[in-house]
């Protein structure tokens, strides 16, 4: 009995490497994906409920803190609206053309995790039939969540920025000299900013964004905020640990940026 099952498994592994299995795979996906999507939505509701009861004491303080932040942001927004109006007037005066927004956004839904042990890869419900291909940026608002790592006809795997295989060039937006470095994922939990020159100033709380120098992602997508800086005299470069800006488990929809 064991040998029979083992032979069937080996045959499936061999056939899985050929295109013969793809129609069966696509058919199975049509059955599986709706269940996956429904199950994930239910799971998120349960998780949010459990999270609420676990954090009920912290929520009051967080509510007050967020109200303060909203008030602060509202006042900044008012000032920025004035700046934008003046910018438009100046552009009109100097006849400077508006820059075209970089590419189009494709809405996709998160339906599960790939490669169970790592939890730094997610599955979305669009694939090559929707125009997706490897290397495209996956974003949420102005935050970079990751890149497309593998594509099937109707599904794709997103490698998150916290995955150990993720790399991109970045810059510290709040640093006086706009310090440049390389960001990579670590252990599926956080990011690390490396190769920062020793004479550059980087601080806790600084926002790190993509620099666009590696031509992988557009410039200006948020990667995270610095939570710890490491500057040892024995090492040539500075490094910093970044906190991912979003909690992935709370997100249901993301966008793929197609240039």
């Amino acid at each position, binding site marked *: 009995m064991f040998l029979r099952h083992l032979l069937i498994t080996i045959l499936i592994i061999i056939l899985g490497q050929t295109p013969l299995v793809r129609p069966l795979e696509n058919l199975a996906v049509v059955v599986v994906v709706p269940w996956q999507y429904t199950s*994930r939505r239910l799971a998120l509701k349960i998780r949010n409920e459990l999270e609420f009861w676990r954090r009920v004491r912290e929520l009051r303080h967080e509510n007050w803190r967020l109200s303060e932040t909203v008030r602060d942001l509202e006042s900044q927004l008012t000032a920025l609206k004035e700046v934008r109006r003046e910018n438009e007037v100046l552009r009109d005066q100097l006849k400077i053309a508006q820059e075209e927004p970089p590419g189009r956004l494709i809405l996709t839904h998160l339906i*599960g995790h790939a490669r169970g042990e790592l*939890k730094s890869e997610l599955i979305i419900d669009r694939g090559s039939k929707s125009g997706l291909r490897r290397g495209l940026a996956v974003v949420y608002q102005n935050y970079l969540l990751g890149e497309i790592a593998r594509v099937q006809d109707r599904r794709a795997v997103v490698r998150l920025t916290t995955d150990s295989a993720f790399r991109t060039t970045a810059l510290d937006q709040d640093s006086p000299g706009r310090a440049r470095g390389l960001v990579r994922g670590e252990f*599926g939990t956080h990011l690390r900013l490396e190769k920062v020159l020793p004479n550059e100033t980087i601080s806790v709380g600084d926002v790190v964004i993509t620099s666009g120098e590696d031509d992988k992602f557009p410039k200006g997508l948020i990667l995270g905020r610095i939570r710890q800086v490491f500057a040892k005299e024995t090492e040539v470069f500075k490094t910093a640990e970044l906190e991912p800006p979003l909690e992935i488990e709370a997100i249901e929809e993301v966008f793929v940026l197609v240039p």
Partner: protein
Amino acid sequence: MIKYLILTLLTFFVVLLEGTLLTAIFPGPQTPSLLLVIMLAIIFAEYHEDAFFIALIGGLLKDLIALTPLGLSSLYLLLISKAVILSSRRAGSAIYIVLTFTFAASLILRILSALPWLTATDPRALFWGSVFDAVLILVVFPLCQNILQSVFGRRELKIA
């Protein structure tokens, strides 16, 4: 035939539960391996043929849902189930044997599943995930045994 249909449907829901609900509630590499725990519980309840079937179907469904190479999870589960069957014949089925084998099987499966990104995986998460699975089998094993005996009949041990 009906038995295998029931097992296939149950395995599908277990894999779906593990891949979505448990992943959302227990994020990170320490998510319980519900499929492995149920398979081991069935092995310790002496339903070896059914365990092989669940290993094959469950592994395929897991690969389909998680986009891993088709058949790889089935291969890992089949090899682990055979190893556990052979080892438990010699060691017996005392509670500490069940816990130890579950912990070892879970750790091996987690390490195999994490290849080739093993160096990027938090080893503490692998350890605690395996401990969680060993604790989970204390609940799942009696439950599986009762359900299987009531649905498929009591399994008689062969006496040489």
